């Protein structure tokens, strides 16, 4: 109803109650504690290129619904927020994992937060947020309060995905799924491990995965696994930013970690097969479990 008697109906001229649908359910105020932003800009997927141009397709492949941008400032400094809202939590996690690399520092504010000087990235449900400092030396810790405030305003996160779903893949034999509560594969370092058999180009291997509740625990698993590899007499050991592995009893294996997720390959017949399986699993994890 536009007119109510001789007066215009004010309800007609105010935004509809579902206006926040335009921002995929994420609404932030312009003031958060000591932090202020002059404007919040919502770009739906088809307009994300206006902020990130050639990078937009990267987030689209993870099911981005849009990008919420805001330039926050406070006495502590100025940080830009790029909040990607995905269709679901697996898409957000995929983008978060795909952009990670070994040089990141992890924080205890939430399990899925990482950063470097001038940067803090976080994952919360279907949202993947990037806070980027205008000043390069700004420590990520200087923006954790803003991050916490933003996260508090995001939709509640659904329960953690069952890790076994991470192993649903065309190369994996569905009936081979196993679960080890402790001492998986004889390693004291590996607990609550899901594993399954996979075949790629006629080369078989075992894929395994576990999710931990915090970064310190995940890092400790990698450290203890490395020690056990050495103790058990592994040969051709290798380590890099992403993985540690080697040859044990004629088979190749490795363990990799991204944030609180640890995953790996065992029983590969060659280094080439190990690499192929690792890349396949890594690629699969970055894109989320197969429904």
């Amino acid at each position, binding site marked *: 109803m536009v007119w109510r008697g001789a007066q215009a109906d004010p309800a007609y001229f105010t935004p509809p109650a579902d206006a926040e649908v335009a921002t995929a359910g994420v609404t932030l105020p312009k003031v958060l504690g000591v932090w202020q932003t002059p404007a919040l800009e919502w770009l739906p997927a088809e307009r994300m290129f206006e902020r990130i*141009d*050639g990078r937009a397709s990267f987030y689209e492949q993870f099911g981005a619904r849009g990008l919420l941008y805001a330039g926050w400032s406070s006495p502590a400094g100025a940080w830009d927020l790029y909040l990607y809202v995905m269709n679901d939590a697996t898409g957000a996690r995929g983008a978060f994992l795909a952009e990670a690399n070994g040089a990141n520092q992890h924080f205890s504010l939430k399990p899925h937060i990482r950063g470097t000087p001038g940067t803090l990235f976080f994952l919360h449900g279907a949202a993947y947020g990037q806070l980027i400092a205008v000043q*390069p030396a700004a420590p990520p810790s200087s923006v954790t309060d803003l991050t916490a405030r933003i996260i508090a305003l995001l939709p509640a996160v659904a329960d953690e995905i069952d890790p076994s779903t991470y192993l649903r893949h065309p190369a994996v034999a569905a009936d081979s799924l196993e679960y080890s509560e402790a001492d998986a594969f004889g390693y004291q370092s590996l607990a609550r491990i899901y594993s399954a058999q996979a075949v790629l180009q006629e080369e078989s291997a075992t894929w395994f995965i576990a999710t931990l509740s915090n970064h310190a625990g995940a890092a400790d698993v990698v450290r203890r696994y490395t020690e056990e590899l050495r103790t058990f007499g592994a040969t051709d050991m290798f380590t890099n930013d992403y993985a540690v592995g080697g040859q044990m009893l004629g088979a190749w294996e490795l363990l990799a970690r991204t944030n609180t997720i640890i995953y790996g390959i065992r029983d590969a017949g060659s280094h080439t097969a190990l690499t192929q399986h690792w890349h396949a699993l890594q690629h699969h994890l970055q894109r989320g479990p197969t429904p």
Partner: protein
Amino acid sequence: MKETPPPAAWTRRELLQRAAGAAALAALSGGAGWVFRNRRLVPPSRTLTTITPFAVPGTASEMVIARGTDGAALVRAAVAELGGMQRFVKPGDRVLVKPNCAFDRPPHLGATTSPEVLGEVVRLCVATGAMVRVTDNPINDAEGCFVKSGLKDATIKAGGELWLPAPALFRMTRIGTQKITAWDALATPLVWATKVIGVPTVKSHNLCGASLTMKNWYGFLGNARSRLHQSIHEAIADLAQFITPTLVVLDGMRMLVRNGPTGGSAADVMPGNVVAVGTDQVALDTFGAELLGLAPQEVAYLGLAAQLGVGVLDRAKLRIMKEVRA
């Protein structure tokens, strides 16, 4: 032969009908104009603007790679090795400098050209007695990008002027022969200029592998240019045909080696400590791709541009190829 009756023969009804039709047409065209202006989809002009090559005769096929930790010193050393800026820019020249200022990110994230490299290029040009303007057409707010990237400050302190894009500066322009034959481009600055110098940065690109010299000309395009990402290699080869620069200063001081072209994390940036200066876009970009760990065959537009005669993949085939330390 059928003749149109003279106006005097029209009835009042016909006149009113024609007047109403004319008014409707005027309203329609006015409305369309409003839509176009707001969407910046400027209707194509009947004649295409052609951008003439900016190369200086006798300077083709040259490249110098300078290594060290001071970006400005590397620019000076490499340009000096090529005979000095005065070999490329003369007093009275109007020089258009095109850095990569595509995003409003601070310089340490490697998504934009290093301010110290751009500043030195501008300074060297100004010192020749030329008028120097710096431009780029980011999709974000242009001034915001120039401010946050540090490129506005660098330009002004070096004695140059910033030329921010505005709708009136765009015209339909001839581009290349592969994918984009014509596009709404930042033509007015290019027509104004007597010399063009590209100052791209070295960075990864999730669609084409590497964003370097040729990809940097993308910033001369307007309109809905993200459509070009569908055939990005062909589009970049077109851009290499579009601009034949006077000189290119490829900035590899800090390289965005992952998650380009935007990046966002200092962990994705590696010190390159190198600047390559030259006139062969293909050779320069092949070198830039190597810096990112990419072989030429992994970056399809390099081969395409070489096939089109833009330059050579093998820098050993250049007429001048030197390496210096500074």
